[in-house]
């Protein structure tokens, strides 16, 4: 039946109808992992035994006539910076190589309550810092559409596992584009929710004012189903809120786009954005026009400076958040040291990779005496300005459409020695995190080499239902559905 290729919505229907079991699904997913993981390298940990036991339990309950949540029995991959009690959570870092959390993240508890089956923990850039998954201490994940190319990052393992049908759903985290950029590179769908929509409790912090956990899948419907499971206010995360929370985002998928106004922010179609990407996104805007939406040009003038503000704010917060990794209470401790300070320095120097050290040092620099006003304070002022510009844009339209990334997936190794070139991959996505908005990345075509192109739909705060319905309308209008590429 090739259950591993099915969407979550299809599997939910089959499970409810009794035409397959959770055990069959999980076995099929592991068979696919056994077949392709050697080439894709998406997973850091597999939870085969626990997943099969959980599947058997779900089958037993369903057979006993219990009414289970719609996604009960559907397999999911979890990014390795989301704490899973009793299952290693490494953040793809030597620093946390042996870390087994004593508790689970709120989202992980919610997955379990909803009966989703965690297949394993997936690779990422170390501490979510990177755009290619090449910063992982353990392995380099490949793009299933072309194994010589990166899957994007930092949630590259999540996107690659979905693209290779090694998982039906996935959780990622997004601080500057880490869900959307890999979703675009791998031809899958990823949503960065509004800041506060999903609890961050148990997500290893990178930049606390920007981080969000979000759902990924192979269709907008699947992403809507997973979002319904993970959103809600959580008393363990003071920034979480249930403002505009929807119990079932799938119920909003059929909102009509006719009569909506779609904004094209001109700054996202300029220099550096490949012609093929621009054409594909503009063609998607035309699809919305054909569906009865009005397409209007808008402007977010500060876009050009967003990358600067992003690296100031995110690195400053990272330098503070990552100060906790000192070899004392958990994580890596150096073997050789003489004093306590020595132990801190040696543990951090040996435990962190290059990119993490660069960001910690950048953050330390912008927060250091004499530079705070010149950098961090200016970055926060920029944040306010950018929020105002988005508010003005949303006064003229319902959502914005832009490229997710200026190009399609680049080659492994292409940008590793040039951090600034690597950072530019996030130019279309960072504004969303700075302004705390929701944004969806979904496929909108392929380039001449057959690599997926992603478009980004950006909405006003808590406008996830609108974005998902717009994405769903596009999928229906174009007859799009995910096709598993030939791997290798």
């Amino acid at each position, binding site marked *: 039946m090739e259950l591993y290729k099915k969407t979550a919505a299809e599997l939910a229907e089959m499970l409810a109808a009794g035409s397959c079991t959770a055990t069959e699904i999980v076995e099929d997913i592991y068979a696919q992992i056994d077949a392709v993981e050697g080439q894709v390298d998406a997973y850091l940990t597999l939870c085969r035994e626990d997943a099969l036991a959980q599947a058997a339990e779900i089958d037993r309950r369903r057979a006993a006539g219990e009414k289970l949540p719609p996604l009960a029995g559907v397999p999911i991959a979890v990014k390795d910076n989301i704490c899973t009690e009793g299952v290693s959570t490494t953040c793809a870092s030597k620093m946390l190589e042996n870390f087994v959390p004593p508790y689970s993240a709120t989202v992980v508890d919610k997955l379990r309550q909803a009966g989703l089956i965690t297949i394993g923990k997936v690779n990422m850039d170390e501490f979510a810092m990177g755009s290619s998954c090449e910063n992982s201490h353990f392995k380099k994940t490949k793009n299933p559409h072309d194994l010589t190319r990166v899957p994007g990052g930092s949630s590259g393992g999540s996107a690659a596992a979905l693209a290779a049908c090694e998982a039906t759903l996935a959780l990622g985290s997004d601080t500057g584009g880490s869900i959307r950029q890999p979703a675009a590179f791998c031809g899958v769908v990823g949503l960065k929710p509004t800041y506060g929509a999903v609890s961050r409790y148990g997500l290893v912090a990178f930049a606390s004012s920007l981080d969000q956990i979000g759902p990924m899948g192979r269709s907008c419907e699947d992403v809507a189903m997973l979002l319904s499971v993970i959103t809600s206010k959580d008393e363990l995360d003071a920034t979480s809120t249930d403002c505009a929370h929807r119990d079932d985002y799938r119920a909003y998928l059929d909102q009509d786009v006719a009569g909506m106004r779609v904004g094209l922010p001109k700054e996202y179609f300029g220099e550096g954005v490949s012609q093929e990407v621009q054409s594909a996104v503009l063609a998607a805007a035309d699809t919305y026009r054909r569906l009865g939406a009005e397409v209007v040009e808008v402007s977010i003038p500060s876009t050009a400076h967003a990358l600067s503000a992003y690296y100031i704010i995110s690195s400053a917060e990272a330098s503070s958040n990552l100060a906790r990794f000192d070899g004392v209470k958990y994580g890596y401790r150096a073997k050789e040291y003489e004093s306590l300070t020595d*132990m801190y320095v*040696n543990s951090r120097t040996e435990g962190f990779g290059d990119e993490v050290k660069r960001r910690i040092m*950048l953050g330390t620099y912008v927060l250091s005496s004499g530079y705070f006003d010149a950098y961090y304070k200016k970055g926060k002022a920029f944040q306010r300005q950018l929020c105002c510009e988005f508010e003005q844009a949303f006064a003229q339209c319902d959502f914005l459409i832009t490229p997710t990334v200026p190009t399609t997936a680049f080659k492994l190794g292409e940008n590793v020695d040039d951090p600034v070139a690597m950072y530019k991959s996030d130019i279309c996505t960072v504004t969303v995190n700075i302004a705390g908005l929701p944004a969806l990345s979904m496929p909108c075509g392929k380039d001449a080499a057959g690599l997926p192109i992603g478009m980004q739909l950006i909405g006003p705060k808590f406008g996830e239902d609108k974005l998902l319905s717009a994405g769903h309308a596009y999928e229906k209008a174009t007859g799009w559905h995910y096709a598993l590429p030939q791997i290798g």
Partner: protein
Amino acid sequence: MDIDIRHIAKLANLKIEEKDFARYQKQMQDIIAMVESLPEQKDFDQRPDPADAMELREDIVKPSMPREKLLAGAPQVEAGCVVVPKTVSE
């Protein structure tokens, strides 16, 4: 712009090896050049947006995580305590 990498690394509790020094210096300079392009902003208002106000929990005593469970991940433990090098001289 000249950045004192050794000083920054010291503040960050990191050590940059001599062989890596030039590479870090160049990369940090490139990154700082990029972030320096941020223009001056006027009318900066640092007050939080009331719509984003955080709600704090009631301060209630509740059972916490068992000590052994927390210490299970510590690199060195003795008699229920984390062991670190001596910090006070006699």
